[in-house]
């Protein structure tokens, strides 16, 4: 196991022993809990509603062929530009991020298309497991992001989402809810801060 080079073991031991002198009182047992987010009705519609309220787009497609047609018709991936796709049957790409030696080579990608594992109805977030990507930075460098989610993978709330994630093999994973945004200037919402300037989630089935 690697340990600290500076500060080192002495700092660690001193801090840990000081923390043992805490004065936290009352019932300090780990609580049993469950807080389902109920009453959202149809989960796909609820997900779509929340995602659109945070600046994202949500397309409900009947099947993969339908999704492919919607994407083609949207013009989102019309040339020119670099399109990086990890979902080739829906979105054919022309840029292979896996072949790029350095993440910075992804700087001009116009659209990145990836699989989303889970959609969360209560907050419009999509869980993207980036473990298998050679460059996780692609998710944030791409001008637009398209996430493809199975309709059956839409869950009501964060509690159900975490229940589905096995962190064992995960090296990095992201909940992404809408495009990047900021309100740092006078509370005025601006879509497209540093990450993707637009986000489309295609829900299949």
């Amino acid at each position, binding site marked *: 196991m*690697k340990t600290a*080079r500076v500060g080192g073991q002495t700092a660690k031991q001193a801090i840990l022993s000081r923390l043992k002198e805490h004065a936290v009182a009352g019932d300090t047992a*780990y609580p049993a809990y469950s807080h*389902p987010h109920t009453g959202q009705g149809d989960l796909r519609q609820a997900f779509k509603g929340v995602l659109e309220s945070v600046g994202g787009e949500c397309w409900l497609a009947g099947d993969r062929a339908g999704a492919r047609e919607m994407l083609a018709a949207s013009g989102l991936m019309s040339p020119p530009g670099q399109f990086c796709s990890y979902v080739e049957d829906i979105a054919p790409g022309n840029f292979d991020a896996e072949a790029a030696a350095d993440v910075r080579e992804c700087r001009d990608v116009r659209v990145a298309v990836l699989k989303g594992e889970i959609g969360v109805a209560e907050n419009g977030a999509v869980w993207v497991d980036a473990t298998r990507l050679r460059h996780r930075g692609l998710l*944030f460098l791409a001008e637009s992001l398209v996430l493809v989610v199975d309709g059956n993978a839409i869950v009501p709330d964060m509690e159900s989402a*975490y229940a589905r994630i096995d962190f064992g093999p*995960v090296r*990095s994973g992201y*909940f992404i809810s809408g495009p990047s945004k900021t309100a740092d200037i006078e509370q005025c919402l601006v879509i*497209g801060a540093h990450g993707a300037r637009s986000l489309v989630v295609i829900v299949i089935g």
Partner: protein
Amino acid sequence: MKSHAVLAAGFLKDAGRARWHDEALWYVREKRDRLVRSVPGWEELRDTAHAIKRHALANLSSYLEEFERNAAARGAVVHYAADAGEHNRMILDILRARGARLLAKSKSMLTEECGLNDFLESNGVEVVETDLGERIIQFARERPSHIVMPAIHKKKEEVGEIFHRHLGTAAGESDPTALTRAARVHLREKFLAAPAGLSGVNFAVAETGAIIICTNEGNADLVTSLPDVHIAVMGVEKLIPRSRDLSVFLRLLARSATGQPVTAYTSHLLGPRPGQEMHIVIVDNGRSDILKSARFHRAAFCLRCAACLNTCPVFRRSGGHTYNYVIPGPIGTILAPHRDLKKYKDMPFASSLCGSCSAVCPVKIDIHRQIVLWRNEIVEAGYLGRVKSAVLKTATAVMRNARIFTAAGALGRRALRLAPRFFYNNRLTIWGKTRDLPQLPARSFRSQYKAYRKTGKAGESRD
């Protein structure tokens, strides 16, 4: 150092700006309320968050060791820093060992607390804040006035002026979209050029060794995924036991902070990306002292959401720069005295004790009660001003004795009728500067009550 009251008087001189600031924050508070109402069982969720924090902090040393084991197994290097100085030197050493002279940084209140930027700059490292609000105030050479919206005190025209000077945007350009685009182009180059990136940490999960970072702009994600070295800094209190607990905290955090259902990005990092070095610096810097305090340890439950700032009538009407501690508002008020009771003795008095902070706190910290207790400590320590001390001593003597109290009441009612404004609006009683007394009753409650018992009729309370 000027006191909060003096600085607030300065802030309030520009009435238009003061109102604008108040309204901007109240707007966020209202957004929070709308989002909170949409979540069934919000109060139970807060209770659970409180219980998880209580459990985690009572077992912190073992959770830290569990976290370190798991993070190290995934390839991260874990460091411990006892204080701000150690934290700063560690980061400089990591950067120097890799010859990094440019650091891209996402938002971290811990580094503000430690004074990292000044330290690195004076040691020849260029630090680039990449959160838009942080970049604005870094250009302006100010400190954040708010822990989530650091440049909330700046008008868009002022931001335009700053960007014109530093980024060459057109003179007079003040459109937030145009300014944000300019910052995007400018900072994209920095992300791509920086050999090292530094981020804060919102949560650290013991059972997996994961660190979780929540942002809207996506800057933390570029800072953590592009450079070849990623340094994450966190206070010891960020530890939570299980991944599942994230569901509780993430459902509370963004709704409480900015009135969003969740932040745009919630990043879970379990070790470095391939080819990258990842350092996690775990900092005490006084946190173990807070946890040792029977009265005040709950201040360490804080998630830094800033809901208490947005709702606070004093914060909204005085602005973050009127608080001398790096963290302003109600939560800053109960953290600052741990650092230096004498230096920050004015802060616990910058409160109306209305309790709104405690009512919105997602982890149910009893903030306003702690503020009262800190006033206690300040009196005990003898740090109260002479005038206030004398007034309180007199009031105590009067209120302790029923006869003196009755006599004083009668005297007061008469005196105030004869010369009302003099008594509460002279140079000594600053209370009257912005307040007026209600009309006084002719008779005390006590004599009215006596009369009522005798006659069975409520007597006239006024002349």
